[in-house]
């Protein structure tokens, strides 16, 4: 017995010894820094003169400052749009990439690329894409000129498919609405019909249209107009951010998909569940823990968005892109002026409390 006890005690010591370096690191760089920040948030401090206690003055000043309120609105809008969008995109990507296809690994690597590329590099590339005569406006211009052909083709595709399925059924053959073989022939028919319509002059090849010249970054405009709107540069960052973070969460969903028992799908198939019913009633509920994790990480990440705003920098007006995390930095090192550490710390504390509240709310809603 006694040997057992000393043995166990020694094991405990070994465990704590292993933990010690990380605990020290955590204590110095997180716990100590956090406590200091909270203290600074109640003081007037510029890095040079010793901090002067001012009580709640910084917090009161924050909520009176238009730039802070703008940052707060921008951060909330960013989190509310980006988190659901990237979660849904990640889920769909994972479903697609979970198929047993030849060369699926190559596709998985390709879709994962945006997440392993440095966000600095991606932001610089997007600054180019978003230019007035950049690739995104060019694609939109193409869409405006040739979009009617795509729309006509889609409409014809649906029509041909309907006609073919009805014909098959009249012959007494079982044909689903999304029968792939019929779909393929409908697609060829639709493409041919569009080509014929263009050749006959019924449809113009390209509609005359001015090139799209949306200003994505250097503008203070908002979209859509009305009470619920976001600055266009912020929307540009949202699109970029969804694109770069969705693949990371896709990886979590892919891992989760491996754990869904095969038998559930087999039983559902026996009961006659269609593929989309299997996704809605088996896959999605089974992935609930993963969704919880993805939403939590997504909310924390989006509320604390900093790097892409910082890199876009002078390319867009400050009030159109500023987020809370960037507001903290902007106050710690205001351009051309002396640091305002008190204000920066107060904003950082507000950001931390806000993040905690939002994640707590999300836990309550999902009840996990």
């Amino acid at each position: 017995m006694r040997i057992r006890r000393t043995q166990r005690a020694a094991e405990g010591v070994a465990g704590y010894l292993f933990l010690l370096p990380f605990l020290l690191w955590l204590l110095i760089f997180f716990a100590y820094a956090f406590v200091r920040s909270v203290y600074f948030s109640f003081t007037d401090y510029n890095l040079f003169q010793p901090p002067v206690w001012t009580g709640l003055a910084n917090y009161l000043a924050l909520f009176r400052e238009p730039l802070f309120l703008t940052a707060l609105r921008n951060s909330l809008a960013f989190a509310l749009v980006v988190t659901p969008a990237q979660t849904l995109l990640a889920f769909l990507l994972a479903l697609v990439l979970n198929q047993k296809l030849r060369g699926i690994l190559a596709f998985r690597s390709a879709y994962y690329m945006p997440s392993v590329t440095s966000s600095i590099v991606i932001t610089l590339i997007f600054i180019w894409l978003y230019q007035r005569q950049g690739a995104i406006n060019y694609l939109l211009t193409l869409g405006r000129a040739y979009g009617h052909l795509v729309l006509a083709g889609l409409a014809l595709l649906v029509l041909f498919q309907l006609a073919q399925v009805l014909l098959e059924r009249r012959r007494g053959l079982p044909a689903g609405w999304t029968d792939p073989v019929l779909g393929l022939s409908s697609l060829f028919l639709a493409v041919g019909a569009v080509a014929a319509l263009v050749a006959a002059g019924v449809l113009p090849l390209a509609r005359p249209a001015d090139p799209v010249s949306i200003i994505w970054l250097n503008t203070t405009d908002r979209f859509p107009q009305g009470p619920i709107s976001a600055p266009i540069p912020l929307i540009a960052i949202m699109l970029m951010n969804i694109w770069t973070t969705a693949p990371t969460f896709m990886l979590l969903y892919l891992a989760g998909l491996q754990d869904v028992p095969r038998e559930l799908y087999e039983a559902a198939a026996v009961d006659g569940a269609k593929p989309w019913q299997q996704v809605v009633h088996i896959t999605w509920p089974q992935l609930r823990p993963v969704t919880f994790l993805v939403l939590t990480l997504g909310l924390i990440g989006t509320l604390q968005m900093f790097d892409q705003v910082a890199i876009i920098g002078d390319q867009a007006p400050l009030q159109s892109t500023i987020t809370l995390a960037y507001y903290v930095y902007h106050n710690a090192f205001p351009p051309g002026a002396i640091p305002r550490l008190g204000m920066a710390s107060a904003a950082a504390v507000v950001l931390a409390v806000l993040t905690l509240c939002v994640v707590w709310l999300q836990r309550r809603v999902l009840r996990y």
Partner: protein
Amino acid sequence: MFRITHLPVRGVALMLAVAIVCASLLVAAVPGPAQAKERVVRVSGWGGTDIAIVEELIDRFVKPQVAKEGIVVKYEPVADEFSTYLMNSLSAGTAPDLFYVDIYWSHGVFASGAVEPLDSYLAKSRVLKARDIVPDLLKAFTLNGKIYGIPKDFNTLALFYNKDLFDAAHVPYPNANDNWNTLTEKLRKVTNKSKGIYGIALTPEFARFGAFAYAAGFKPFDAQGHTDLSQPAFADAFKWYTGLVREGIGVLPADLGQSWGGGAFATEKVACAVEGAWMLGFLRDQAPNLPYGVTLLPKNPKTGKRGNIIYTVSWSMNAASKDKDAAFRVLEALTSPEAQQWILERGLALPSRAKLANNPYFQKGTPEAQANKIVFAGASDGYVYPFSFGKYGGDWMTPINEALAAVMSGKATADQVLPDLTARLRQLTK
């Protein structure tokens, strides 16, 4: 859960844990390389094109001068966010002995008490006297009567024009006699909507607009340090500057897919741009075949004066430097007449020593020498203010820039934004 049952394994695990902890503690305790007895002076500034220049400057003019006194110069450029780096290192006590201070953020650094006043050193020095330096530049680095930095060089704004576009439209080039009205007429004639040619590229920034506001007689701060934008001079300049764009004579660089006036000028779609000598290197690289000329900014028709903004950078000394005499010896060498002559002749920047104004370099006929001459002259012609807004820094300009952007992009009129703008600046500087 697995349990360590065999003694040897447990022993190994314990030893490993102890070893890791010891190693992590050791790393922190290892002493740095032993301090040599030489007098080390650390010099720092921002990176970019400055690195090659300062390296050569130190090798050619500083090291030979100070080596015999046992002073070793260590150059430590910082690639990005230099002012952030400097604020941090000054407050943490790890700052270099000599460093750049940009006039734009100089006030906060000087007021912090972390920068050494240089008056007593200048009084003792045999080679560097306060009277050697262009007075307006030295004044810009003076706070409460004390000199906190020796300007290393400076820049002002000038009017760059594209000779081809003026020739094609049969319009005479802008010249030093132009005022706002005559220049507007010239620009109107050069503008050609069908070819997409604009008269002038104007950015919605006080950093350019300010020169015109000053020309009209606008004073950024009154004797009490308040800002009053209700001065008629400010509204006059605001309406003229934004009106050029609203009339279609001027264009925002952003509308040409460019981020600054120089970029717009290089597209050859605009006939004029308001920039400083930093344009020269840019045009040499980006538009080597663009035939350009440079002239002084136009005069305000009412005051008959020009305005301008001085952009300048100083060498300043760390108040916590261990060997201030050595640091000042290095500062003397960095700003010596020979060093400044070399910088000027290389066309790198304009010198801050007053005597170099009559340098033969300025008499050369090359466009670059001419441009430098105009930029040098701009510092002492009319109402000239340094690019500095005291303790307010960028916060002082932000409301003005926003108002300029709103009017120049057509979202509001000058009369709509000016009352609110006046109130915001009054609130900021109250």
